[in-house]
């Protein structure tokens, strides 16, 4: 039983980060009906930028801020240079293009920073708290991660539900034609969606890097986790992405704890298959995942 609690505690922070990544995928999907398979490639790239800034200035926080700005810029660039020019009906083209961006970004990162895994040490103590005579697998850094994620999610929900920009973004996602007729600059809202997604992904990248190592391909597996969480959540739902992101993280932590961490990709795969078999439209959404 104490094992169970340990594994759950250990999975909370990675679950929260997966939730952020899923959130980024959902933000892009809502704005342009594209799953951005390059999302975590962008996050990997901005995390390298954060690492460089941190090595130059010694400040983790400055690295995070610059990575967020870079994520914003990269998101907008990818949207304008790649996604907008793809023909609207060419869904396979859009998917392939995002994979092209992923390949290019991973190669570019390897060219600039080298392909070897690099350590990204946590900014604060990452050894567990001590209480009731034992060490719990929950550290000050986990607390920082959790606080950051909660803050970001709350900020996003305030933006989406309480501001005019948020309303315009929701309108553009819900019905672009009507939104345009109502005077919403839909294209700007779509670009804003990509920008916010890039920012969220950048935060997720900087937060997750200390939990493993940073290499050009080390986020590939998180792409699978985030996609799983986003799809189970309905791909359309911000709440679903957060809830199932944390859920996916916890399930992975439990399975890794009781068996072996190399099983994590298989766990994600099984979750994804089960979801697509029994509730392909996701838990929080009503659109169709199956074509036939």
């Amino acid at each position, binding site marked *: 039983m104490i094992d169970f609690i340990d594994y759950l505690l250990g999975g909370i922070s990675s679950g929260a980060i997966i939730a952020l990544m899923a959130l980024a995928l959902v933000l892009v999907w809502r704005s342009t009906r594209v799953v951005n398979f390059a999302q975590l490639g962008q996050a990997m790239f901005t995390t390298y930028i954060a690492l460089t800034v941190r090595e130059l200035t010694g400040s983790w926080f400055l690295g995070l801020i610059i990575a967020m700005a870079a994520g914003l810029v990269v998101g907008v660039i990818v949207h304008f240079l790649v996604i907008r020019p793809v023909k609207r009906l*060419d869904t396979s083209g859009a998917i392939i293009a995002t994979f*092209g961006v992923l390949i290019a970004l991973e190669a570019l990162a390897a060219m600039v920073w080298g392909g070897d895994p690099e350590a990204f040490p946590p900014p604060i103590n990452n050894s567990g708290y001590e209480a009731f005579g034992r060490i719990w697998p929950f550290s000050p850094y986990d607390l920082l991660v959790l606080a950051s994620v909660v803050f970001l999610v709350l900020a996003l929900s305030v933006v989406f539900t309480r501001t005019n920009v948020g309303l315009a973004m929701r309108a553009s996602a819900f019905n672009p034609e009507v939104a345009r007729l109502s005077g919403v600059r839909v294209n700007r809202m779509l670009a804003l969606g990509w920008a916010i997604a890039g920012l969220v992904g950048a935060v997720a990248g900087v937060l997750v890097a200390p939990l493993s190592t940073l290499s050009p391909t080390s986020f590939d597996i998180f792409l699978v986790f985030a*996609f799983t969480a986003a799809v189970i959540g309905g791909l359309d739902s911000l709440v679903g992405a957060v809830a199932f992101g944390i859920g996916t993280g916890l399930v992975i932590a439990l399975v890794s704890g009781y068996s072996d961490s190399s099983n994590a990709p298989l766990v994600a795969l099984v979750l*994804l298959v089960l979801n*697509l078999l029994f509730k392909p439209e996701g838990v929080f959404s009503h659109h169709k995942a199956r074509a*036939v």
Partner: protein
Amino acid sequence: MEALVQRFPGARLGVNAVTALVIWGLLTWVNQVIEPLMSYYLATAAMYATAMFGMTILLGLSGQVSLGNGALMAVGGYIFALTSMNWQTVPILGTPWNAVWSMVFAGFGGVVFGAAIGGIAARLRGPYLAGLTLGIAVGVPAIANRFPELLGGENGLMLQVPYPAGGYTSGDTSDEAVDDGGEVPLDEEPVYEELPDDFGDFDEEFTDEFGDELDSDPGDLSDEDLLTEDDLLSEDDFLSDDDFLTDEDFTTEDGFEADIDSDAGADLDAGLDGGSEASEGADITDPAADLDLAGVDAGVDAGFAIEQWQASMAIAVACVVGFIALNLVRGRQGRVWQAVRDDPIAAAVSGISPAGSKISAFVVSSLFAALAGAVFAQILTYVGPGAFTLGLSLSLLVGIVLGGRNSFIGAIIGAVILVWLPEFVLDVSADRGWQDQITNNAPNFIYGLLVVLVVLAAPGGIVGGIQSLAGRLRGQAKSSSSP
């Protein structure tokens, strides 16, 4: 030609058989005359082409973006490795035909896995399918870690290439080689009779004297640095002759149209199977003969001869797969796939099951991927999680998109690009003196940019681009592209 096909119902099969045979003959001849390093590139390109014929059907004709083909190659590779290593003494399935049977099992495994995955995946819409197959590409190689005793875990399995002993013996295949005549160089026949006597002796010498050296070469590949896709592509960086494949590709295309004869009957497609095995037989004995004659001091030749044999095997598989693919695509099934891709509802109204059509495309492409994986295992003499990465799946996608996703010629061009571009970058970097980390990753960077460019500017890839250019020159807008 069309008139001929309409008059004789079986003629299409014959035409395809002649096409495959001509290409096979040409490539086999090329493989005999080029340098052994070129044979290695040829083998790799043929392996990629085999897998990408499946991508043409899946992505081009059926319109499904799948990243699972690298994982299905892993299925084929592991099945080949396990059956060819463990079942050598089993009667019937055992030694003389061991490797051929392993190939069959690999293909069968591909069909089973493809049907299982396809049943779930093929009915999903674009991004869901891509995401699920992405998970498969990342997850399936990790299965090797679940069964470390059987599958070798993270280290994978070293494979004994079924050469010169092992899978085949010259005696069994030489008959067919003689029967088939045509494509096999006649001057090599006398060698067959003498070989089996010296074979055993030679094999012992071979392993005693050179076992270390030969084993250490693939060992280096697998243990040190095989683990990323860049390394797979650019591992053998000695020399590069860029034009060796493109040239003969053009000749095959010419020969394609010109060499079609009226007596291309059904016996020719029967001849294809015999022919492909004959090529294996001929090429096994041929390098063995070289070794035998050259004696013990020809260690370099020994390494090269293996590559030539690998190339002949890869070519034979690619041609058989290409023949199957041509028959499927140019027949009813091809039209069914296209109909479902273009309008599933209209297809369903016409009595076609869209789900069935998509699953069948998945199964066929899985079969091809598994066969390519078996070939890949023999080229690397290794199977392991590091060989079948997400990078492999992505490079298949890159190849098919660049070459042209709607045609088999596009698949071949894509395969050539995948082999040629890393070598080209190596050449350039040698001239410019780039750092290793730039040289090793520049090909992927170029692939990524090219993929985006192709999607935006020429969705049909190189082949589609040439077709539309030719159409524009002829002053007629040609909208449909035929595979």
